[in-house]
């Protein structure tokens, strides 16, 4: 039953590939056009902003100053005298002058060195005659850089990934939409954990279906991911409850406008998801492949090859998650060290949440291996009974 079907598919593929080439050509032209248009739009969008934007025409550096602060850190400061032209609003075309003090580290907020041709937001003070008296530097206009990196990413993923790259992009897009709807629902007062769980379920179904199509492989990967995520979150909740949150320092979370615990759990839920999904897809597609090649394979050896694959990917995958999580804490880690905290204190307190996230994610990855194998075996067995 299987062979002719596969052959037909192959022939179809060959016919399609000629057309594909033409599509790809048209597609890349459209893409090129789209990126040129968006490039132009973000480079010339000053008139759409209500905030005053100025383009810097000259920078004169004056004196370097050295100061020593409390923790024995010596820092150099530079003063920049800046002349800029206003690009939008009623004062368009007028010249303004302002001062900018920059430290060597350029650590926080407005502390940044400015260059000629930079576009910045400024606040202007007007006199009685609506003339500009003085101007102050607010922030750099960064939208075009965001656009550049997005264009670079999209172009590369389509260039190297082709149609599969396009699929990944579509799945990313879907996930962004689901994510924003979930945040919107939370804003309207729905329970965060409930919203996050439903969103995660949708993430899983959408991403896996788009990546691997409609088949048994997809089904077992979806069930495996859901079960793996559920178990790892369960373990996290139990451990945190049993230890009465010892060593969990919610006070280290940033941007808090709500109680931290539910937000932390929602973050863990979404963070673990991707890694578990990856493992579940790898294992279920490999096991399907093995089963397809040898329908008579014994259950025991099928499980064994699944475990073999799992052992192979477990290490590098948990590595991926650990680095993704701890990388974000590098700048703050350095500031703490420079402020006199000890390394052990920083690990215990300041980055405890990142460490927890990485650990829970890795636990989820390891757990999802046997779970996915178990589900694959059950589904494949059922499938075989259905076939014969």
């Amino acid at each position, binding site marked *: 039953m299987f062979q002719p079907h596969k052959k037909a598919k192959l022939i179809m593929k060959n016919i399609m590939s000629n057309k594909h080439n033409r599509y790809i050509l048209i597609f890349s032209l459209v893409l090129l056009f789209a990126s040129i248009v968006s490039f132009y739009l973000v480079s010339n969008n000053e008139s759409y902003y209500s905030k005053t934007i100025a383009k810097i025409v000259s920078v004169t550096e004056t004196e370097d100053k050295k100061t020593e602060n409390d923790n024995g850190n010596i820092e150099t400061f530079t003063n920049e005298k800046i002349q800029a032209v206003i690009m939008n609003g009623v004062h368009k075309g007028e010249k303004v002058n302002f001062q900018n003090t920059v430290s060597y580290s350029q650590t*926080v907020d407005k502390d940044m060195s400015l260059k000629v041709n930079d576009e910045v937001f400024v606040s202007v003070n007007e006199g009685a005659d609506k003339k500009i008296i003085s101007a102050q530097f607010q922030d750099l206009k960064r939208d075009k850089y965001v656009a550049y990196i997005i264009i670079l990413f999209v172009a590369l993923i389509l260039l190297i990934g082709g149609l599969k790259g396009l699929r990944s992009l579509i799945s990313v897009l879907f996930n962004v939409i689901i994510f924003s709807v979930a945040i919107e629902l939370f804003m309207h007062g729905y329970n965060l954990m409930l919203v996050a769980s439903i969103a995660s379920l949708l993430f899983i179904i959408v991403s896996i279906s788009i990546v691997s199509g409609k088949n048994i492989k997809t089904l077992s990967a979806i069930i495996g991911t859901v079960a793996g995520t559920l178990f790892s979150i369960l373990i996290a909740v139990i451990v945190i409850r049993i230890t009465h949150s010892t060593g969990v320092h919610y006070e280290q979370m940033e941007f808090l406008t709500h109680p931290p615990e539910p937000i932390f759990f929602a973050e863990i839920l979404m*963070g673990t998801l991707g890694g578990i999904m990856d493992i579940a897809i790898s294992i279920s597609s490999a096991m399907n492949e093995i089963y397809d090649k040898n329908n008579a394979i014994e259950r025991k050896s099928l499980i064994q090859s699944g475990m073999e694959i799992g052992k192979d990917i477990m290490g590098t995958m948990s590595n991926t998650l650990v680095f993704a999580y701890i990388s974000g804490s590098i700048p703050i880690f350095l500031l703490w060290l420079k402020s006199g905290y000890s390394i052990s204190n920083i690990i215990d307190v300041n980055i405890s949440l990142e460490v927890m996230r990485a650990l829970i994610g890795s636990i989820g990855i390891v757990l999802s291996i046997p779970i996915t194998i178990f589900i694959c075996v059950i589904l494949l067995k059922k499938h075989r009974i259905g076939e014969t």
Partner: protein
Amino acid sequence: MSAPIVLLIILFALMTLIGGKRGVKSFFTLLFNFVTFLILIIFIYFGVDPIKVTIAGCIIITCITLFYINGVNKKTVSSLISVLIVVLLTVLITYNMGTEARIQGFGYEQMETVAYLSIYVHLNFAKILVCQILIGLLGAIIDVSISISSSMNEVYKNDPSITKNNLLKSGINIGKDILGTMTNTLIFAFIGGFMAFIIYFTELHTPLADIMNRKVFCSEVFQILCSGIGIILIIPVTAIIMAVILMRKQSDSEKEKTADEIR
């Protein structure tokens, strides 16, 4: 006992139980890598150039991850070379773009976090940003690279007479399959950290045009997309390097064969 310690013990138990010997090795790789990460930070703390330290750190971490678990062979050596190339490429992209966009350090919204800390510490935070991005994507590119090179090795083993072009093609095809799931892994891992901050902006009704220009938002987007770019770049790079390495070995053995025939 504190929650992180309990979780660490659970992870060790699970890795041993499910992964056996290789599981234990994976666990220790994680620990070694974490220690390397700490050493890297200490070097930066003492004022060594962050980018040089990071590149050295990346080489050490990659060597530990590849050679300790999988041993020294064609697969791991070609992965090491590819990871290095992509790390250098990413440095080029992120350093230029990151300095231009000035997304180093902390944004206005994070003032509370750094309120009691010294912020004038004489460290180049623009370079530290590159370090942050590289470390964040390192695990992912190692993973993708070793998957591609070991699959290509299987392909080659099954059909040693395969041409270089076809081997390259199959390598890229394998890479494309991994691309989708790997971008998902990273995107979700970062979205996890993104959430509190998106809620924060939504709550304050910050207009989109404003958010687009904020340092915090831009640096987050940069980190996610640079990781994505790294993952995309590692695919052709690994495929090419692995094809070259496998084929060089092949032509050597072919030469030997012909030499034997002549004799």
